[in-house]
């Protein structure tokens, strides 16, 4: 399994488990850019319509990919934090759990970078109709997944970057 596929599956497991079957195809489409990705992006965060009077809400993973594309620099920088990433992951887990126990062992600069990355992703997800609580959770989980395996995360973020300037969601 290549890094893009593996990271896409791992990311979908955490942020959109129901869309895990589509994650590798969507990540590769994002990496390739072009018309296929343009069509896929239309489904970001929105409802899926069937021809039989059925509604399936999906498109969360597409929204996450678009958010990653639009903030690739922020995420790539975060992946270069080295050993600090362990503390970033711990901090984001505590933020997810809304835990007030204990103190954060993360320095302010790293914390600010992590918060800025989460805020940027959340903003993108909100733009695509994902409700605030879920967007916050997805934003944190996305960074946790990428930061847990930073080398692969960096490759993934680079791979899914838009190939043309007009390919930004």
């Amino acid at each position, binding site marked *: 399994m290549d890094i893009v596929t593996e990271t896409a599956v791992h990311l979908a497991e955490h942020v959109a488990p129901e869309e*895990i079957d589509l994650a*590798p195809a969507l990540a590769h489409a994002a990496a390739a850019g072009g018309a*296929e990705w343009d069509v*896929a992006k239309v*489904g970001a965060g929105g*409802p899926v*319509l*069937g021809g*039989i009077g*059925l509604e399936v809400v999906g498109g969360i993973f597409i929204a996450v990919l678009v958010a990653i594309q639009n903030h690739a620099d922020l995420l790539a920088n975060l992946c270069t934090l080295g050993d600090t990433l362990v503390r970033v992951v711990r901090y984001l887990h505590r933020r997810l759990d809304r835990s007030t126990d204990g103190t954060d062992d993360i320095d302010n600069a790293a914390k600010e970078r992590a918060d800025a990355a989460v805020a940027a992703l959340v903003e993108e997800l909100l733009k695509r109709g994902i409700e605030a609580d879920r967007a916050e959770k997805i934003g944190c989980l996305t960074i946790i997944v990428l930061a847990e395996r930073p080398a692969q995360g960096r490759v993934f973020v680079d791979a899914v970057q838009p190939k043309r300037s007009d390919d930004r969601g």
Partner: protein
Amino acid sequence: MASEAHPLTSSAAVPPWLWFWIPLFLFALPGYVELATQDFAAALDPPFGGSIARLLLILLAVLGVLPPVILLAGIAGTFAPGWRARSIERRYRLVDPPQNYPSAALSEVIEFLHHWSPGTPVKVCLTDVRKLAVVYPTSFRKMTVGVFGGLLLLWRRDRAAGEAVLLHELAHLRQGEVLFVHAGSPLVWGVQKLPWIVTAVVILQFVVGVMLPVSIFWMEWQEMAASLHAQAEAASLPPEMIDALQVPFSSFLSEKAAFFAHAQLPALALGAVTMVSWAAAAWVAFVAAIWCLEFNADRFAVCARPSALSIWLADDPSGQRPWWRKLDDLVTHPPLSLRRLLLRHAEDRVGLLALLLVFPAAYLVRLVLLIVWGVAVSFSVELDPSVGSWTRTYFTSGANVFAFTALVLLLWPFLAGHWESFVAGVRGYTSPRFFPVYWASAAATLAIAALGWIIA
């Protein structure tokens, strides 16, 4: 074959009317050609009026040939399934399923499809999450199922619903009408666009029909004004007096309005009735035949997987679509309320009877619309617009069609299995408890045929 893989339920509860209609249509084709030749000859050399009258008559003639042209295009489209397949695969980006793709749902979907329809090729477009599945022909005898990302989402959320979607599509495949309808079908495209074309022509007719007399009145008024000026100058009247004598154009036009209301508007309205009734007569039968296919596919899915009924009872998401898209959708997908109603009665006799009578009822509506057309045409050429004679004409000519339809309904319980076997290589079964329903629908249809023969 295992009974679970190929359940006894027939996927062709209702005869595939489009197939039976083609010989009827080809039989009637010389009549259409003769009518079109007459219409075009009259349009190119109109007995009255000028170029505008010619334009209107040409429009009417073009509109008159549209329904048979659409059906011909549909038939012609069946001769190029390979081209249609390539076009659909390009449009929807359908490709062979990727090897070693890490998705349990995709493997399950392919396994399910091959379980129910062994050897059917499957193509996928996993990045399109807004679509579920599609069937299309790749050759005369080979149909392909296209699976989209949306189906995998559904599969994971509600497997029974996902199976129902696939069974619905497989029923289309087993009914053998995929060559004519569904994705990329020129027939469906034509039927969807016919109402829009008719509306455009009717509007154009009204615009031309209103603008033409107004422009004639304008010319008349200008001639009057010029004549008045000439007379006034000859009599050496002052300009103020000339202006006082001149009737304003608006007053002149309002004087003519009575003429317009009595002569022009009824002619325009009659033209609109003629166009709409002719096109609607063709449209209603096409749509009924396509709806029957959908009802059939729904029925097969629910009979095979009763739990699947829940997905048709879900909220209608089409509310988010613009109204013009909904109108187009109506051609290929009957109203959800009607589908739900029929599905609630999928297993009982009344439900099947209603389903079997959809097409004969639509054909009856078609005859009524043709009678309206005939009466309107009689009015427009100032002949005796006898409703009785037109009713006699159409019921007489339609009697044989109703008789043929009745014969098909009568024999269908015995033919359905053979049909499925011929089309898809699998044989469904119709329970004998439904036989009387087929015969009752045949009797009702035959009664209409008999009515035609009696009044002939």
